[in-house]
């Protein structure tokens, strides 16, 4: 048990380090810029008409305050942390006066849902098929699947999402290609709404699953073919254990361990994919929010989405890490 507690402690430490470094990167990136975001916002506003110098000065001061650019660098840094810990990113410039936190809160469930479902499906299906492909090497269908996985895996999310959009939007329009649910439905838990949400999620989820599955498939296939050569598998075969049982509880059980670590490691990359996929399909999640915020020049919103993404991904990684001992009992002992 103490081994498990030590493990949890180490993982928690790693989680805090990820958040710390991530937030510091965000701070450095925003503060090392040669362009003053305040002056940029002011020039954007004043280009529309004449504003009195007094009003500009007032606006400059309030924007400096808002962006956390007043005071010494140390004060600015501490203020930056204070706002992040309180999840207070001020009001959004593009959707004034809605707070950034509210906008993010509205978008978060969409991203989390899409990401969770597509990651679990891609990981589960990819590992299952990859395991079968590694065990039944001669099967033609599984070999073909390997070729498809090799062709799909290296394609960036944007390109595949765009291809799906062209196929199902222009050539064979059967699925909705934009939005999170039908516009005319109220967002309550009615069967119609749920159905519409599922229908709208098919294409974004499909593009995430198709690419994600490829890497789990290929990884699992090579892991399984390595485990197959181990003595304990040969022994089980000689002892007459049924082949399905060998595959599931002897071979795949062992090969799954590095795949779980792999999932934790690639979560950030999968999140990147979700961001861009959401933008392609106009899905109302964090990705669309981020990109639209850049187009609208909304500093607080961009910073807010970035920090929430770092936090969200590291919480996901922590969750996977804490489930890991269930699969690999050696962690509890050491």
């Amino acid at each position: 048990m103490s081994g498990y507690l030590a493990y949890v402690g180490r993982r928690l430490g790693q989680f805090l380090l990820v958040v710390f470094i991530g937030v510091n990167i965000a701070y450095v990136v925003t503060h090392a810029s040669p362009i003053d975001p305040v002056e940029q916002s002011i020039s954007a506003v004043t280009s529309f008409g004449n504003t009195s110098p007094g009003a500009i000065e007032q606006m400059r001061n309030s924007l400096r305050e808002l962006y956390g650019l007043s005071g010494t660098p140390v004060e600015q840094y501490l203020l930056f942390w204070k706002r992040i810990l309180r999840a207070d990113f001020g009001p959004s410039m593009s959707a004034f006066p809605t707070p950034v936190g509210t906008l993010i809160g509205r978008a978060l469930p969409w991203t989390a849902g899409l990401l969770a479902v597509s990651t679990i499906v891609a990981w589960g299906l990819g590992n299952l098929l990859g395991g079968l492909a590694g065990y039944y090497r001669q099967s033609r269908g599984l070999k073909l699947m390997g070729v498809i996985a090799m062709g799909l895996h290296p394609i960036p999310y944007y390109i595949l999402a765009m291809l799906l959009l062209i196929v199902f939007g222009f050539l064979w329009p059967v699925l909705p290609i934009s939005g999170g649910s039908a516009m005319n439905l109220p967002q309550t838990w009615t069967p119609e709404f749920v159905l519409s949400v599922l229908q709208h999620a098919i294409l974004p989820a499909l593009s995430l699953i198709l690419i994600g599955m490829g890497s789990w498939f290929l990884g699992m296939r090579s892991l399984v073919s390595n485990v197959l050569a181990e003595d304990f598998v040969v022994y089980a075969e000689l002892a007459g254990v049924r082949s399905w049982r060998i595959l599931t509880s002897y071979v795949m059980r062992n090969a799954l361990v590095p795949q779980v670590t792999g999932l934790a490691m690639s979560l950030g990359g999968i999140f990147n994919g979700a961001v861009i996929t959401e933008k392609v399909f106009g899905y109302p999640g964090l990705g669309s929010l981020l990109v639209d915020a850049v187009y609208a020049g909304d500093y607080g919103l961009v910073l807010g989405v970035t920090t929430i993404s770092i936090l969200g991904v590291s919480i996901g990684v922590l969750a996977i890490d804490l489930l890991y001992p269930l699969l690999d009992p050696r962690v509890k002992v050491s």
Partner: protein
Amino acid sequence: MAILLRDLLRHSPEFRIGAVLLAFVLLLSVLASFSPYPPESVYVVPPDVPPSLTYWFGTTSRGQDVFWQLSFAIRNTLLFGCTVALISRLFALVIGLISGYKGGWIDRALMSVNDTFIVIPLLPILVLFYFVMRDRISWLMLALIMACFGWAYDARLIRSVVMSLKAREFTQTSLFSGMSTRQILTEEHLPYVMPIVFSTTMNNMVWSIGLEVTLAVLGFTDINTPTIGGMIYWANQHTAMVAGIWWWIAFPTITVVMAFIGLFLLALSANAYIDPRSRLWSVGEAS
């Protein structure tokens, strides 16, 4: 080197296909030097002409020849990938070698930072970077910041190889014969690590080019330098798909997908070759 290439060509179908795909892409990028038009000029040919004998891949709504534009774009995109890969290889090598050889608290500290860089979602950070830099963002700046993030996974791989090298006898021998740590790492361990560095280079290029395409398509890079993502960005700006100018999107997409699959297959076959178990297996099956 020649023997290695011959073996790979003979025994690995992945390597053959990857090499052919990549050869096409490289040929196209080399052709950029013979382009009759400078890459930045617009309205040099009649706009919106479908693919024909005069304009092989058609022309864009901005009056550019898609073929020549594409050859500039793929050249810049590949150069970008190579730059990121080269710089990030340096980081990965230094951190991987030191971490694997030194062990102890240095290893733990470096690997904690390393795991952090693996996990952090990069796209929002790059978008934030573009947001504060705006038009000042340049090709090289983007390559540098991506290189700062692209080393972590490969440093872990290198570390694991060095850890096993450290346990072998020749490391002890060189230590007792008075070689310094730097000498042991660069002269004794580096040659064993190089195959992995080569195979990760190609995977790293797939990764960085993919991110660059993504950013460029959104318009979050220097959009005046022709790149594959930049071409798709301009095509989207002119709603090429809706207007029926499919060749403006199709040819860049096909080219970059060929590059991705080619690089990935080369990395895959190189990995299989490095691992002695799978090398024996593939040679055994072929003969």
